[in-house]
């Protein structure tokens, strides 16, 4: 009906349109999960950079510091988990980042391509993260 009053018109429109985009209420297809994980791993890496800079700083300070880093990495479970965690975030973020570069070149832009790329990201990152864990332990 075209000649409704402004109040009723507002109400009708408001009832039919989403007021806000609530991401939590939406479905999460695989590419959405790999995308949010890319963001989360990126934020983790902001803190992880401090760990990497500290490791570089210590390793270049002296031979004693270099060797003590090595022995701590060989013995401390917490230290291994921190290093593995930062490496995992770096690996995942890198693999998912390469997907963006591929998409910039025109690969994987379709819906099917996006789903295939998401599966590839998970598979490649999982293999590399397990490999990194194997090298640490």
């Amino acid at each position, binding site marked *: 009906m075209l000649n409704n009053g402004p109040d009723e018109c507002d109400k009708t429109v408001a009832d039919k349109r989403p007021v*806000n*985009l*609530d*991401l*939590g209420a939406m479905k999460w297809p695989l590419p959405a999960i790999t995308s949010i994980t890319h*963001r989360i791993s*990126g*934020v983790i*890496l*902001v803190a992880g*950079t*401090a760990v990497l*800079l500290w490791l*570089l*700083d210590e*390793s*270049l300070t*002296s*031979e004693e510091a*270099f*060797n003590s880093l090595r022995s701590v990495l060989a013995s401390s479970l917490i230290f291994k988990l921190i290093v593995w965690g930062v490496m995992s975030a*770096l690996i995942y973020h*890198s693999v998912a*980042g*390469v997907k*963006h*570069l591929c998409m*910039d070149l025109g690969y994987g832009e379709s819906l099917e391509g996006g789903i295939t790329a998401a599966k590839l990201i998970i598979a490649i990152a999982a293999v590399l993260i397990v490999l990194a864990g194997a*090298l640490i332990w």
Partner: protein
Amino acid sequence: MVTSVTNLGRSGLSDWMIQRITGVILLAYTLFIAAVLFIVAPEFAEWKALFGQTWVKVFSLAAVLSVAAHAWIGLWCVSTDYLVTHVLTIKLGPAAGAQANLLRWCFQAAGAIVLFTYVVWGIQILWS
């Protein structure tokens, strides 16, 4: 076109380009360090000598500066997507939603301080 006073390149297209260039630099540096650590597996003397070379210092500085630019653009994207009025109103209520601009600004300021610290720390490590 994205215009904002807090994004790195003043335009979305510029941010996109910077994000790609710094991403490729960081990928190359990650592969380089991984190859050194896992293939060469250096002792202290070799490790120290490697970082004594000018090209490694320059490559490392490029990586540190890339982290700062890349992380700034990334944190800006995340904060302007989530730390905004309508998202905080849904998640935390109208009182939080009303403070969204202040919260986002504080988040970005904290990010800027951390990333600037990384740049200074990186230069100190490489040239000390």
